[in-house]
């Protein structure tokens, strides 16, 4: 028995803080200002806000609804909602998140390092920020050290499960708000001092020509999609810890709005500070990638008004806030992975330890290899990390697509069931709309626990809007590479298309191929070999892999009608597994899980 009972957040605020923590990351603080700068200031805020409601909120609502019913991590959720054969989609979702986590831990380490450098006064006005950055990045021991610290903090935070996650997130998030508000105030003073408040004005001025450019809308969409972590599976994971009557819709809106609120605060802070100090602020804001955070901002903050103490405070606050934002995202990333292990019967400490180690070790190449120097600027950058981001960043879009797929599938199944019940044959769009398309919403969203009733608009978004937005994002991403990358089809080109398709193809192929052997079943070696050898030699049999759902007491979360719901080996944590199973040849065979558990008991 993996876990004695269910694990849940103590209350609604706990859940909200945890999800906000997951959503708010470095993207709010360094990606958002860059997007504002590159996409015409206020012009960018229009699509950004529109897509908040067209993409992020609906998708998070779906995630909450899925997780709250399945009560398992991503793998289990897809096994239940999309069916056995599609359990690999859950693994994809988990993998994307974890693969991002590999290098995100490194980035978190950078933030922590910059915080401690700032505290020690190492980011004063007299230092050359490029030199600081290059020295740090080109010293692998240092980078790895801070990466390890980031992983260790994350590990400690989630060791104890939901309640600990909640506590850490509440603490970090409140600190983050306070720090950001303080920084915002200082930046406001800075921008006001030169008498123009131009950073503020630019950020909230609509430049009409930008609204006519598709890039602005695509960037608004992608910023919305990433910033809230919609589709990442994070909401699925945290909804596992929801109390039985928890709201799923208003929480989603709250989480996304909170995320965007922080974006605005962070964005204003950065824009006002940069505009106050830098001669060519837009080039500084829209040019570099991570450069603005680690090169420009320390310089900018070092010129804050109020003398060295305020300057020190400002740069310290900023990097502490950044570290906190990164850490809370890190926590959700690790938890997403851990949750999947726990679902499949692995003890939490074991899962946490294993995941943390994996994240640390697989993050090492990103931390320490291919540290190059950009010829044009002389600024060092981690190319391995960049390539990782290049490959896995857009994989997130597919996670979102899979979520939509499970919803479409559920709707279609329900329509077929309705047809059978009413003895109707032949497709009728009206019937499908009434009895299929809306069924997920009727069955899992508008359950009565919510403070916000979701109307038909959600169906339109999931069925029509989402595929459209998904296609636009993916196509524009590839079109952009075709247009702006030399030799995009060369597989050795780290910035090309081929490398992405290659890694996506291998990963998806592996997951689909191993779906039957690893994800929904497990291998029982017949020759005493360890399972990989057994798999290769063929000396094995398959038995269903048990899945333990984290269902709070008293919560009714039946899954019988779902595609994967009739699997007897999907049980609530604490329930006993069936002793036998019927294999693919129709034979009834004893399951090893029960005997092991019996032995343990």
């Amino acid at each position, binding site marked *: 028995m993996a876990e004695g009972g269910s694990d849940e957040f103590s209350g*609604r605020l706990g859940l909200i803080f945890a999800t906000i923590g997951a959503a708010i990351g470095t*993207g709010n603080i360094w*990606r958002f200002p*860059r997007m504002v700068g*590159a996409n015409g200031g*206020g012009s960018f805020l229009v699509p950004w*806000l529109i897509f908040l409601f067209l993409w992020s909120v609906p998708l998070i609502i779906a995630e909450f609804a899925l997780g709250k019913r399945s009560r398992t991590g991503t793998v289990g959720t897809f096994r239940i909602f999309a069916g056995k054969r599609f359990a690999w989609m859950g693994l994809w979702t988990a993998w994307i998140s974890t693969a991002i986590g590999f*290098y995100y831990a490194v980035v978190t380490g950078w933030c922590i390092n910059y915080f401690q450098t700032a505290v020690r006064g190492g980011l004063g006005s007299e230092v050359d920020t490029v030199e600081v950055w290059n020295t740090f990045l080109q010293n692998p021991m240092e980078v790895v050290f801070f990466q390890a610290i980031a992983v260790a903090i994350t590990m400690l935070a989630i060791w104890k499960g939901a309640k600990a996650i909640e506590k850490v997130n509440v603490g970090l998030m409140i600190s983050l708000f306070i720090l950001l508000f303080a920084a915002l105030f200082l930046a406001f003073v800075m921008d006001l001092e030169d008498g123009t408040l*131009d950073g*503020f*004005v*630019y950020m*909230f*001025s*609509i*430049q009409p020509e930008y609204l006519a450019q598709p*890039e602005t809308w*695509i*960037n608004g969409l992608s910023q919305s999609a990433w910033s809230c972590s919609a589709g990442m599976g994070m909401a699925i994971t945290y909804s596992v810890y929801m109390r039985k009557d928890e*709201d799923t819709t*208003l929480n989603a*809106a*709250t989480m996304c*709005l*909170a995320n*965007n*609120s922080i974006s*605005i605060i962070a964005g204003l802070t950065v824009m006002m500070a940069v*505009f106050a100090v830098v*001669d*060519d*602020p*837009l*080039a500084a804001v*829209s*040019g*570099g*990638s*991570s*450069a603005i955070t680690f090169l420009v901002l320390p310089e900018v903050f070092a010129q804050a008004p109020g003398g060295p103490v305020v300057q020190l405070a400002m740069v310290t606050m900023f990097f502490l806030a950044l570290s906190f934002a990164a850490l809370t995202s890190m926590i959700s990333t690790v938890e997403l992975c851990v949750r999947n292990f726990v679902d499949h019967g692995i003890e939490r400490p074991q899962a946490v330890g294993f995941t943390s180690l994996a994240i640390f070790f697989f993050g090492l190449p990103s931390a320490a290899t291919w540290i190059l120097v950009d010829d*044009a*600027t002389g600024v060092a*950058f*981690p190319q391995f*990390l*960049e390539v990782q*981001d*290049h490959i896995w*960043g857009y994989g997130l879009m597919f996670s979102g697509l899979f979520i939509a797929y499970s919803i479409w599938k559920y709707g279609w199944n329900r329509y077929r069931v309705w047809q059978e019940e009413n003895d109707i044959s032949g497709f009728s769009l009206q019937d499908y709309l009434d009895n299929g398309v809306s069924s997920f919403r009727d069955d899992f969203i508008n*359950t*009565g626990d*919510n*403070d916000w*009733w*979701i*109307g038909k608009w959600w169906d339109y978004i999931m069925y029509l809007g989402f595929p459209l937005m998904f296609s636009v994002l993916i196509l524009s*991403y590839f079109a*952009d590479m075709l247009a*702006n990358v030399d030799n995009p089809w060369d597989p050795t080109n780290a*910035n090309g298309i081929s490398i992405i398709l290659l890694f996506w193809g291998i990963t998806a192929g592996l997951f689909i191929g191993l779906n039957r052997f690893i994800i929904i079943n497990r291998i029982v070696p017949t020759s005493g070999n360890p399972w990989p050898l057994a798999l290769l030699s063929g000396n094995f049999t398959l038995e269903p892999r048990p899945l333990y759902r984290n269902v709070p007491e008293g919560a009714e979360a039946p899954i019988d009608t779902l595609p994967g719901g009739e699997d007897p080996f999907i049980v609530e944590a604490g329930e006993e597994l069936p002793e036998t199973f019927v294999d693919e040849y129709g034979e009834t065979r004893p399951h090893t899980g029960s005997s092991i558990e019996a032995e343990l008991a």
Partner: protein
Amino acid sequence: MASSNSSSASDEVFRARRIPAIALILPLLLSVAAPIAMVTPVSAQDAESGLAPDDIWSDDYANQIFPWGPHGDVEKLQFREYYDYFTLKERMQTLAAYYPEFLQFHEGLLGGVNARGDEMSSTEYEGWYYNHPSPWMKITGNVQGGEYNDYNNDDGNYADRPDVMLVGNHHAREWMSFEVPMLFLETVAYYYGKAAIDNDGDGLVDEDGWDGIDNDGDCLSLDTSLQDYNGDGIACGPGDLGVDEDFSEQFITDMVNTREIYLIPMLNTDGVRYDMEEYCGPTAWENCYRSGWRKNLRDNTVTGVTPLPDTDEQVDPSCDGVDLNRNYQFEWGAPLGATGPLFPGMCYSSGPNNDVYNGPVNYEDNDGDGLVNEDHVDGKDDDADGQIDEDWMGGNSEPETKFIQDLTEMNDDDGDGASDFKSTLTWHSYSELVLWPWGHCTNCDNPDQEFLEYHGYKMGDMTEYAPMQSSDLYPTTGDFCDWHYGVHNSYCYTMEIGNAFHEYPEDIAHIAVRNLGVPFYMVEIADDPRYRAIVGIENTTSTQWLQEPSNVTVPSKGDIPISMCLDTTFPFTPDINRTHLMWRFVEPNRQQNDYGPTEWVNVAWSMSPFMEPGEQCVLLDGSNGTMLESHIPLPDTSVGKIQYKAKLGTVNGAFPFTYPDSDTANYYELSIPYRAPFGSGILALLMFAFIATMVWGGLGFTLRAMFDDEGGVIGLPDDQSHLIDEEDI
């Protein structure tokens, strides 16, 4: 006193030449210097800013007294009076007698079998009417040595010395066209073999050679009222006192020792005599300032086509004569313009005389194949019989042009069958131009276009004359330069001297001085004019610059100007397809990777034309250049980098010169800041209010709804409420 010092200096020079010059020079000095002497004190009074000529130079130089003399007519020697045929020939003979080691005087050619197989006698090179062969001077070091040419009758033929032909006076009335060669001859004769001389008496040696620029700044230190000595409107330009006044004697010596110079100062002796003695008279500037006799003196009276010369007959000015500069064979006779070149004139006293009659048609079967005029001279095998240009329509019918043709074709020191004259020059009047082939066709480039142009511009700079392709002035057929270039591939230039056919005598000297550098330049490039042009263009381009990003001023709004500094001699074409600024605006990719270096959007290069705003700029070597300017159109809202490079094409496009030099960088990169206003404060505040309401207000609303248990369910339709209520119960 400066004047006594300098006059004693010139005394020494004259004494060194064992010639009592002072007696001859002093009265001249007084008479010629009189106007200057009158001007000088007047300007000196209000000239606190500048110096007077004799403050700087020797009196001789200040009054443009040439150091040579005295055998001959002082006025003529000093270029205050025109030579005539006889005095010119006499002066040439005198000089040749004085300097036998490098000057050899000749008249016409000895004759024999010429390059086309015709038996020629020396008399066939004498003018129809007065029967003078053209006098010419062979100039080269050790002119008595070398090979003897038994056709041309000259010594001093060296296979390893490039030859250069300098020809004056095709057209009789263009008197400056024999004065300039004479000044060249005097200069060579006087300075050859001398140690470095302080030509202008300013204490410096060889400080200002021929380039049209006041290199030592002495002219510029004059009072501004004296800086335009020749009155051409250009202060301290070519021909002004103090410009190109102290050239290198060693250069002259080297040139003479390493080249064979064929100087023919007066080709059209018949015409000059007729113009000077009959048609206009010896003071032609008074009655024929811009008119006069142009052609030679072929007698066209008898048949109007192929007359026999008749010396007893008086010249008939209404139809006699052939335009020698239309009588060369290359593309001879193609009718051009309205002048009817094949028709000599009406031959009655008031009838129209064709001043550009190009000579009679040749009806001979030149190659004896039974066909007539089947392959005229154009460098092509018109009748596809394997021979080129073997049966011509006409041309070379005159003693003077035959002389040029045979002198050219029979002078083959190295025996390679090709002309030894790699560079050729002919002087004409007037218009202040430098011309090069082609003349026979308009808008037609030739294979050496930009090289010809390069040298042409160089000589244009020396003289401040306008350089252009000959046919850009007007098309001509059968001229000297088309023949030399078309048939013998010689780089050939035509100088159009001055502003009249018969310039006033007091202008002879300064006009001649202004043109003195050109023949030396032609002599210098005679070794390999094409290669010299290539190297010259390359050197030129290395001093040219495209404005570097750090020097570019990005205006606060509108187009961004990028300038370029070109050498004035660089033969760039204004055609935008060949000469333009290539630029592209690169902005950060909007779909930026979060962790790598900034990614930039790939965009194609655009072209902007260069314009000439008429300003000067300073080249990398410190000399003045021509400013070009191009404008990059860019919206004020753009933020990013402009990458730019210049592509310069010369006239025929063979040299796509790129700036910056591709060895160091492919293009310059200029950061462009956001230049538009950031926006309106009020509107921004409204937008902020909107966004804040939506996001922060929305957050507040959801938080409130979350903890407001009484509030019910947001957005719950009425028909659904009972369901919820039931489930809640």
